[in-house]
């Protein structure tokens, strides 16, 4: 099947113009993957849109910036709040046209361009079987026994790693560098991306991993494993929003608008939990599947908006690098 597809791509580099309009959606690899929400979303949207939704997977922001206004993208899905400033400044994105009041988020959402479709709290996930104490604050994490090892992601190459240094900065302010120095003995290693770190954790190499408070839901649902738990910190957690936006230069504006509306629909929202393992952004907790509603969640939210995140990014990352390079 795929081979014939490849052959046809080879033979006709520019495929014949389809009769139905094509909605090109740029998405991260994990999103468009067979094991991500992409396929279900495509099938659901194509039921009603009279269009052909095509995912194009890869690095979102660099790609759209390289392509500029000549981009093929109609929709970009999977951006994150810590890089939206750069995305916004390109002027390539249009108003999302949806009512922010329909969102059910831990913070008030006022952005008219980037629309959250799912979210989760950045959290440390641990293996309850291997831990002698359950950390419930950043200080508990520092006080873990020396043989309890943590693996985190590098803020210079990973968006979740960046969310962590911003979170620590928001909690510790001037003392963030000191915190990293104190945590450093427990850090086993730093990985370039989330999947390497999570792999080290599930393979038993590390006891604690930087991930999301919704990560345990995968283990509960798919593996009936309840030993993976998210540590809930009393200082509050940093929420991680995934965003969707419409590209102003789209050649199918009506279909793109229909897609933005579809993102807020219950059809789209109910695909999210079991495919992207995160909270749907437009549903309140009583609409979530039971396993998500039962996940431990923090009482408090610590958040830096786009401007604050952009201002702090270079200095906090440098602070982190210096503290961990000693």
């Amino acid at each position: 099947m795929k081979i014939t597809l490849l052959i046809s791509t080879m033979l006709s580099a520019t495929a014949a113009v389809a009769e139905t309009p094509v909605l090109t959606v740029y998405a991260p690899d994990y999103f468009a993957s067979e094991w991500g929400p992409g396929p279900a979303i495509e099938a659901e949207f194509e039921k009603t849109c009279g269009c052909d939704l095509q995912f194009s997977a890869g690095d979102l922001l660099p790609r759209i910036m390289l392509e500029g206004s000549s981009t093929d993208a109609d929709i970009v899905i999977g951006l994150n709040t810590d890089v939206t400033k750069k995305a916004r400044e390109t002027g390539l994105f249009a108003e999302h046209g949806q009512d922010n009041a329909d969102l059910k988020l831990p913070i008030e959402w006022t952005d008219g361009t980037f629309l959250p479709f799912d979210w989760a709290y950045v959290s440390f996930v641990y293996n309850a079987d291997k831990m002698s104490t359950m950390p419930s604050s950043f200080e508990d994490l520092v006080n873990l026994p020396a043989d309890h090892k943590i693996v985190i992601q590098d803020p210079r190459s990973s968006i979740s790693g960046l969310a962590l240094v911003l979170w620590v900065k928001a909690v510790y302010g001037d003392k963030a560098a000191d915190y990293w120095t104190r945590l450093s003995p427990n850090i086993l290693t730093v990985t370039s991306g989330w999947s390497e770190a999570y792999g080290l954790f599930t393979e038993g190499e590390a006891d604690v991993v930087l991930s999301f408070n919704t990560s345990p839901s995968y283990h509960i649902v798919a593996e009936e494993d309840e030993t993976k738990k998210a540590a809930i910190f009393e200082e509050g957690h940093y929420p991680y929003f995934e965003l969707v936006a419409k590209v102003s230069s789209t050649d199918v504006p009506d279909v793109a608008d229909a897609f933005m509306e579809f993102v807020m629909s219950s059809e789209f929202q109910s695909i999210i939990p079991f495919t992207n393992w995160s909270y749907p952004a437009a549903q309140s907790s009583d609409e979530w599947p039971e396993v998500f509603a039962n996940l431990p969640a923090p009482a408090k939210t610590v958040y830096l908006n786009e401007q604050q995140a952009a201002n702090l990014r270079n200095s906090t990352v440098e602070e982190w690098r210096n503290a961990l390079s000693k």
Partner: protein
Amino acid sequence: MAQRVVQISTSILYLLVFAMPILGLAIYGGVDLHFTASDIAAIKFTVLQAILSAVLSVAAAIPTSRALARQNFKGREVLISVLSAPFILPVIVAISGVLLIFGREGLFNQFLDSLGQDAVSIYGLSGILLVHVFFNLPLAIRILLFGWGAIPIEHHRVARGLNLNAWARFKIIELPMLVSRVPAAMAIIFVICLSSFAVALLLGGGPRATTVELAIYQAFRFDFDIAKAGQLALVQAGFAAVAIIISLAVMKRLDVGIGYLPTEPMWHSRTMRLVDLGMISILSIFMLAPILAVIYRGLPHLAELPTSVWSAAATSVFIALPSSVLCILISVFMAHRLGESISILALSISPLVLGVGLFVIIRPYINPFDVTFWIVVLLNAVLAVPFTLRLILPEIQKAQSDFGRLSRTMRMSVGGMWAWVILPRLLRPLGFSFGLALALSLGDLGVIVLLGSPENATLPYQIMQLRTGYRLDSAAGASVLLLMMCLFAIVIFDGLGRRYAKH
């Protein structure tokens, strides 16, 4: 003459394939030479770990390849093929195998624990070096193995006739071969390790182990600073060029001999055989334990792989075949010392920069995503050439020096000489090279990351997708499939080449 023209023009075309993307980036991003303190630290660390990795890999390869060259035993050829596995696997798969052996809970620490010893941590510079040696030792062994094989058997016979002692034999017969091969082996491994990124960071234990490649990645992904990414890529290429020039300057070219078969009785004294086989055993344990761990981890999940993994495997084969044919063609057409040096330079260009640069250059003309297939085929071929050319070139030189004059006396044309004299004598290295190119292409992840899409997912890409989708068991199963495919490619084509080779 005609031959020289073809070789040099192919080499220049080859150079363009990877020099153009960098130029493209430079033009797109402009030039702004400015390196921060952390960039300088990254450059220093990158060069340091690459030098140490190259020295250690080659140092370990000298005695082990010598033992492998002079001892014959059952399964020798298969062992040599299987030893290439770490070199061709996607890094994250190979690392997971290494951690199953040397990680915190790995077999090695369990063994130490059973002896009442303290656990040893792999994380740090030592971990980076361990893994780089694990990855590159197979390559160093291959290069030297051909070197030992190129020492004319008469030299050994004469040395025996003259009653030379072991030291004199080493100095007169073996040292010149090492002087001719070691600098090149070190240069190529140094260049490979220059662009290490995920390995260095993960095993280095933190940002102390930051390499230039990470800075490139950061500049591109977060800062969208194309100028900086391009300049850092040039720094990498610059160090690679220096290494290649040094290796060429140090290296002395030798006449290649007719080679020996491992039947010389003087190596079959009991002690020597025991020492050699002991060395081969240690090498095999070090190299094969992580590979066996990958198989042990993944084999139970091989049967339950989703069908998409199998079709991704088919896609990989479908890309690897034309790519390997192209690679062999380029290697033969570029079989010249200039081509050899140029090809090593290609290894220093990070796949990210190569992909982005190509993207920038061709986008004004065609949508790169419409021609992903061809880009991947081309880049996989180009990136395998440094290895295949290294295997093919000495044999071409040998055939030319042995039969060149004879063929010219018969007034044979250049084409005729290649068709009837040289190519039939190349079947052996061509077979292995084709298998190696196939395996490298099958295992390649670098190029596909930027241009990959679910429709033409390759097997390494699918393994990455499974890992990001929490499915580590399936990813482990798919890794075993990939490992089997790579080894199968090498064993089969190496075997075919040997079978039909004319000696």
